[in-house]
């Protein structure tokens, strides 16, 4: 069996195991906690598609995420659309946003892209705040249905939805890694000018990466209005999403999708744990501090450390 088959089967097995295991645990808290961690897994994996594979740093994660959340809100209000359809729509909207951002700035150096994404967050937030139909700064309430299809309760459904989305994101990232897109992105990351000189269609590849990355981030944000029941622009556009996506990926390692997953699970669990045990004023300090430590001392992240160990082991 090819590695691809292994990966896909592995993901499905893991998913089923998690659902059954949590059902047995019978504790609804697990669904909530799991949702948040999986959300960060998806955000980190999608952030890494641009950063790790292509070398472009996105400071506007929150903008793409919030665009997904507000797509759900707007479509829910306008057409009464089901959440699943909203998720797909959110992917389209955020994907287009990524495409637009990319087209605007990717002919320039990477740092311009980063700054443009930062501005995007401000512009989008201003737009939403001045848009009464989207709730403006007062926010929007979203009522949850009691249950959904075969699921016992709605929180379980949200968890499974995010599980499917996160694992799909992993599958997409893994596909990119093996594909010509991924190869092209790697050459861009290593030396863009040389790649262009060698005939790699750099702009097209970068646009593909920003579109896919944006779309996944949008889908990560789409269920949020149902999860939190109340959403205002300040919460949706929170800088924390940007910070966490970046920190989790850099701490985990950027070489493959495994890095962001490790980082998200580790940091996400730590943060969730800290919320309900100790005071979390220092929470963000720890995130920032650990990120600095890692980029300074272990720039390839945890994944890099593991691989370095393995190589040493091979040699010995």
């Amino acid at each position: 069996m090819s590695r691809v088959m292994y990966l896909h089967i592995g993901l499905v097995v893991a998913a089923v195991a998690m659902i059954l295991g949590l059902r047995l645990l019978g504790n609804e808290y697990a669904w909530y906690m799991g949702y948040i961690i999986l959300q960060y897994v998806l955000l980190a994996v999608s952030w890494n598609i641009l950063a790790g594979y292509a070398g472009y740093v996105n400071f506007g994660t929150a903008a793409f995420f919030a665009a997904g959340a507000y797509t759900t809100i707007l479509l829910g209000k306008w057409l009464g659309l089901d959440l699943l359809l909203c998720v797909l729509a959110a992917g389209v909207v955020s994907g287009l946003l990524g495409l637009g951002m990319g087209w605007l700035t990717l002919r320039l150096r990477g740092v311009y892209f980063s700054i443009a994404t930062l501005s995007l967050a401000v512009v989008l937030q201003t737009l939403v705040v001045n848009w009464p139909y989207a709730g403006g700064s007062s926010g929007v309430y979203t009522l949850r249905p009691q249950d959904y299809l075969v699921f016992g309760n709605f929180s379980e459904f949200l968890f499974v939805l995010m599980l499917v989305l996160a694992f799909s994101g992993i599958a997409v990232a893994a596909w990119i890694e093996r594909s010509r897109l991924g190869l092209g992105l790697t050459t861009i990351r290593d030396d863009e000018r040389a790649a262009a000189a060698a005939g790699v269609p750099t702009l097209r590849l970068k646009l593909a990466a920003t579109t896919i990355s944006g779309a996944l981030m949008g889908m990560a944000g789409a269920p949020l209005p149902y999860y939190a029941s109340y959403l205002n622009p300040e919460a949706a556009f929170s800088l924390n999403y940007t910070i966490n996506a970046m920190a989790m990926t850099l701490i985990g390692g950027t070489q493959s999708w495994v890095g962001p997953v490790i980082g998200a699970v580790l940091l996400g669990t730590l943060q969730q744990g800290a919320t309900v045990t100790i005071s979390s004023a220092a929470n963000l300090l720890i995130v920032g501090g650990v990120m600095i430590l890692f980029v300074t001392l272990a720039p390839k992240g945890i994944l890099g450390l593991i691989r370095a160990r393995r190589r040493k082991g091979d040699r010995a």
Partner: protein
Amino acid sequence: MLDSFLIANAVTSGLLLGCLYAIASMGLAVSFGMLDVVNIAHPAMMVLASFLIAVICAASGLDPLLAAVLLAPPFGLLGAGLYRVYYIFFERRGQEAMQGLAFFFGLMIVIEVALILVWGGDQRWVETAYGGHSLNLGPIGLPLRMLFPALMALAAIAVLFVWLRRSFTGRAVAAVAQDREALRFMAINPIRIKTIAFGLSIALAAIAGGCLIVVQPVDAHSGHIYLGRVLAVVILAGLGSLPGTLIAALIFGVIENLTATIFGPAWSPAVAFGLLLVMLAFRPQGMFGGAHG
């Protein structure tokens, strides 16, 4: 009612505001524009300076602008040290694009959270003798709270320009922005020059911090408000052009206040950033930048 006095006042207050943006951006124009070090923690350092100045002023009764001048040298040393770390771990390894950026991002977060942990989330401010008073030149009102920091900003920028043109180190800094290797041929160590230049950018952050706390009370998150604006100004100007940064900052301030007066303040942020995005789309080198793309 949009009479001409209202417009004239909007333009003047916009210019004063622009001077504040100018001193806030100038440090970043040096580090980002000339040295290619994307220090996104710059506004956070400015806020840190504001907090420290508030403490100094509370303890000594000194004027905050004066305190800022006193704080500038230690901040300069801090900047020099910071650049050394950055150079060793990132620039030398060729990893400034991502890890370097992440380093400064992490630094920004750490500074902000540290400020909250040490001083709490409340605002800090400094009482000045001239706060609350205005200089009235006919129909044009100039609040001293804005005027004095604006004058300080212009003075600091003037000193900066003169130093860059006249002094040896200053000209070396301007040179290193253009061509590091050529500098080596002149037996000048570019790393040393860059260290000095980066230290200078952080010293400018200290001055900006003093101006900031005279204009408004500062809290740990104030940096966010300035981050976007400062980046916008630097890019609007074009990387590497310091006079351009001043002009771009003034334009920014005037546009913001004119928009607020004519259309209402709700749209000011969008106008400013919209301008930035438009500039990036059609003239990415900014108004005065060279071919840096």
